């Protein structure tokens, strides 16, 4: 190998060493780019040296050229590696700076609170819809006929006296004392079969206390079909109570009196507070009354023009706040109508 060729090869190798050394002290990706231009750019030092190949003897060019390409490749690889490393370090630093305190609260679009009466009503509607009941409402201002007479509560009946009815001044009308008039309106409007759930607001002239409110909600359930028995009522009540209070709830089905049903029945659940041992809430009895029910009284069928020999049915009604109070341990009915956000917030997600 000629001297010139040897020198060129030595210079190229020296450049590689020099380049690597400089690269080691490059601090930023920009520094690395600068070195790439300086060594490998069109006018870079390696490029320029390689231009000296032409001055060599043709038989020496391949060997030196190959050496030159090796240097170039090695430097390029070193540059890339260095750049990648620096870039990564930079990014890590940037990411480190972007660290958040993951314990700070997330930003959730605020969802409004669902009122416990709605929670109960929505649940009841879905329980009964699965059993084939449709939901309908009715007026809160009612006639005495729909609220009483058609329900086998004629004038002078004790149940009429005891209902603490609120009357509307200047009219013959009243604020319904229960959701039962929806039974009458529904039966007046169409022939059987009927499976009705009627939730709604009711009124009693009660002084407010822990368990009384002049305004409260009830649900009314009415079934009129052929061949309906007290046994169907019992099954429906059991299914409803288990769906609402839980599978293990203990129930007591016993006779009760309501003028618009006969036979009449009441349903008790084992006291949810003491488990049946007896406490202040259940007044020592271990049971809590939850609803009144029974087979639709033939006088009611007669009032709406149904043939009691052909159709039979059952009805029941219960207080919605009472159900919710038992389920959630709500200490007083007044809380439902105060709408205190600190109370309502406890039902969030419910």
């Amino acid at each position, binding site marked *: 190998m000629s001297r010139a060729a040897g020198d060129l090869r030595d210079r190229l190798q020296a450049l590689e060493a020099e380049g690597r050394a400089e690269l080691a002290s490059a601090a930023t990706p920009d520094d690395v780019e600068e070195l790439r231009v300086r060594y490998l750019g069109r006018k870079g030092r390696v490029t320029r040296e390689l231009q000296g190949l032409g001055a060599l003897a043709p038989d020496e060019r391949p060997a030196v050229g190959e050496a030159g390409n090796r240097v170039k490749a090695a430097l390029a690889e070193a540059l890339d590696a260095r750049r990648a490393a620096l870039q990564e370090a930079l990014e890590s630093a940037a990411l480190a700076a972007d660290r958040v305190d993951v314990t*700070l609260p997330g930003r959730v679009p605020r969802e*409004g*609170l*669902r*009122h416990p009466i*709605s929670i109960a009503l929505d649940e009841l*509607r879905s329980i009964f*819809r699965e059993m*084939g009941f*449709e*939901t*309908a*409402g009715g*007026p*809160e*201002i009612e006639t005495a006929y729909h609220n009483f007479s058609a329900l086998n509560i004629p004038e*002078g009946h*004790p*149940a009429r*006296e005891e209902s603490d009815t*609120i*009357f*509307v*001044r200047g*009219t013959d009308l009243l*604020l319904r004392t229960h959701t039962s008039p929806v039974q009458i309106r*529904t039966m007046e*409007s*169409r022939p059987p079969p009927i*499976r009705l759930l009627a939730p709604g607001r009711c009124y009693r002239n*009660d002084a407010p206390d822990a368990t009384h409110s*002049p*305004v409260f909600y009830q649900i009314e359930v009415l*079934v009129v079909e052929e061949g309906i*028995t*007290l*046994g*169907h009522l*019992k*099954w*429906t009540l059991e299914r409803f109570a288990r769906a609402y209070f839980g599978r293990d709830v203990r129930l007591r*089905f*016993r*006779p009760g*009196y309501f*003028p618009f049903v*006969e*036979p009449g029945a*009441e349903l008790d659940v084992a006291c949810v507070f003491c488990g049946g041992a007896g406490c202040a809430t259940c*007044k*020592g*009895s271990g049971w809590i009354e939850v609803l009144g029910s029974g087979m639709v*009284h*033939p006088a009611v069928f007669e009032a709406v023009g149904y043939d009691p020999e052909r159709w*039979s049915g059952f009805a029941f009604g219960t207080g919605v706040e009472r159900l919710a109070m038992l389920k959630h341990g709500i200490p007083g009915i007044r809380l439902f109508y*105060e*709408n*205190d*956000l600190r109370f*309502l917030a406890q039902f969030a997600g419910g």
Partner: protein
Amino acid sequence: MRVSYRWLRELLPALELSPGDTAERLTRLGVLVDEIERADRGFERVLVGRVERVDPHPRADRLKVCAVADGAGVRTVVCGAPVVKPGAIYPLALPGAQLPNGVSLEASEIRGVRSEGMLCSAPELGLPHLGEAGGILELTAAGAGPGDAVAPILGLDDAVFVLDVPANRPDWESHVGVARELAAAVGGDLRIPEPETLAWLDEREGSAARLSRGGAASEPAGDRDAAGEAGVRIVVEDADGCPLYTARVIEGVRMGPSPLAVRQRLWMLGVRPLLNVVDATNWVLLELGTPTHAFDLARIAGPEIRVRRGVPGETLVTLDGRTRRLDPAITVIADPERAVAVGGVMGGVETEVSETSSAVLLEAAFFDPARIRGAAARLEMRTEASHRFARGVDRTAVPRGLRRATELVLAWAGGRTRGPALSVGTLDAPPATVRLRPARAAALTGLDLDAAAVGSALAETGLEVDPAPGGALAVRVPPHRYDLAREEDLIEEVARRVGYDRVPSTRLPARDEPLPRERAAAAAALAGRLRGAGFDEAYTTTFFDPEPFGPGFFPGRLLEQANPLAQDARHLRPTLVATLAGAARHNLRRGAAGVAFFEIGHVFEAASGVDAGGRAGPVGRADDRGRTGDRGRTDGGSPTRGDTLPPRDAAAPADTPARGDALPALPGVRERRAVAALLAGSPFGGDWSEGGKPRPADFWDAKGVVELALRGRPVAFRPSDLPWLHPGQQATVLEHGRPIGFVARLHPRVERALDLDAAAFVVELDLDAVLTAAPAARRVSAPPAFPRVERDVALLAPAERPAAELLERIRTADLAALVDVRIFDVYRGAQVPGGMRSLAFRLVFQRPDRTLTEAEVDGALEGLLADLAREGVTRR
């Protein structure tokens, strides 16, 4: 009705169930036991103590130091009662006792002497009615020994059932009635008291011998007029109101307290013990359910009793001291001079027996239930007697009631009967027969019942059953069973006897008919959307005070309660806003930064000439119609006027909610369903990422509810001028020109009057208008394939020109390819000339078939701007 467990056992010795099991059995029979009270509560550490020695207290003149034998030993007790004496027996409360009057007792030093208990007074034992002298209750006569429990001596080893007696079972309003029900369930003979059965009283008073057997009441005859040996004439003029009147004279009575056990039992059952004669009538009421009354015979003029209707203008002071106005709808017991009692309700104070009475007239009668209900309602009084008569008393038991009362008076007050029982009227209670088909009983109950099973269940309960044609049974109903009138009543009786727990739970048959779309479900979905938008759900009361809203709030159209309990909450809300304000105030006052409530509920107005509120004159429908066409309404009512609302369900296509669900039109009232929201203060945001500053609510939050509820259906907003709303921030919401609601800020005067301390923005929509027009299935297309071009342009327009109008002007301009335009900024300030404002619009252009060029968009825009400029709207 309070019932003594021991009394039940006296009437039904076969009853061996514990009090708890008895209560459970009664409840399963339909006699709900609401509560079981132990009569000896508080007596756990109260024993009989015998005072062995009494010494003066070394450091207090009025105290004594007693050595008291307690059965186990002798303890020292300091006592302040001057009457305490050696050898006497007193109730001794030990340390640790929780006395019935609420006091808990501990051993303590009293002026240097340690007292290990207390000798009790009657009030300390919760028995203030027991007469005592000197501050402690002496029990020496009871014959008990030291260490014995005190409760049994006082008749308190008992349990009291608080019964919830249903209105159709007046026969359960007595111990005999309840015992009769139990006897049918547990078996055993009922011992209804007859004149001979006075065993437990004999022991105490030894007065049974005084009973004049010869004078036992004769069975009443059917006279209208009776007198005779008794020396009292009885005339019944009002035989409809009083079909049967019986009476008996007893003379020579010694008025005074009843025996201790009697007083104790009455007290336990909630009846205040009085004079022995009165106690006897109360006892008979509790025992047999038969109301009786005792008159002081000396104060009856004549003596003659006239049972007649009241006379208009006549008055009577009843035993409760109140003056009652009588009238012909009321049956009155009178003497020849004046009324002496409201028949079947309450006696008069002038003829009341007193400590000086020596002859009494005992009365037992049957009054017509409807007459008594009427009298009790007119006089607004309810007594134990009227309660029972109103529901129905067994008229065949009236003579027994009189005999029993006579017997007890003789036993407790002495004296002797004068003449036989007097009786006017008839006992005719035609035995009712009700037909019962056993197959029907089985079909209605689901129980496996045949004629034999039905017959034996009814026989158990004391009903007589005969075969009737067609396999049916003819059931004879006893006179005390007012509840058994129809076949279904007997079916219940059978089911009760067999036991409701044996009714087989039977699955409802499956239904193949699909359920209709429900209004309730649609309303619940709307509630869900409002919650999703950050509104909290409220359920407010229906009643409110219109005062803070001022005189212009639904004038003449407010409905109110005819019989309100609370004067400031007697009106029915004509808008949900009226009661949502209360929920807002409640929370703002308790530190909430803001509220955003919504509610779905019913609202009420007077309609068609009913001057319900007693305010302005009648509101006629024609009058309403005349004014609702007017833009400048001045009547102050709701912008959603009835007459302009769509007829219900008229506009409802295939998606009409549940059948029969429409609200009926009732005369004089208008009831609607509504959805409303109220925002006040700063309810939104305010978390740490926003620097903790919540955003105040404004008009646009309220207005947004309309857009949210109606989901982009075309609505218009027309400024309105109701006096209870902010004059510059209120609008009627119109859909197809029809008012369906309003959006507004409350008038600041109203906000202040409501104590809100914050601006309150409100919105209300007619719920049925919102829900009935829910969209049907719609057709859709794929998203556009070609890019959109946007242009923002700020326009200077006269400030009074409604933005919606300008928006509509641009939307409907003939601009090819304009697919959307919206307002993104509104500005009034230094750089905008007076009377003008700047509205910035973003216009979006797009074609479905090709890419638009910038040039054609700009060309279209220039054309629009040129047109607008001619209308005085220029580019800014």
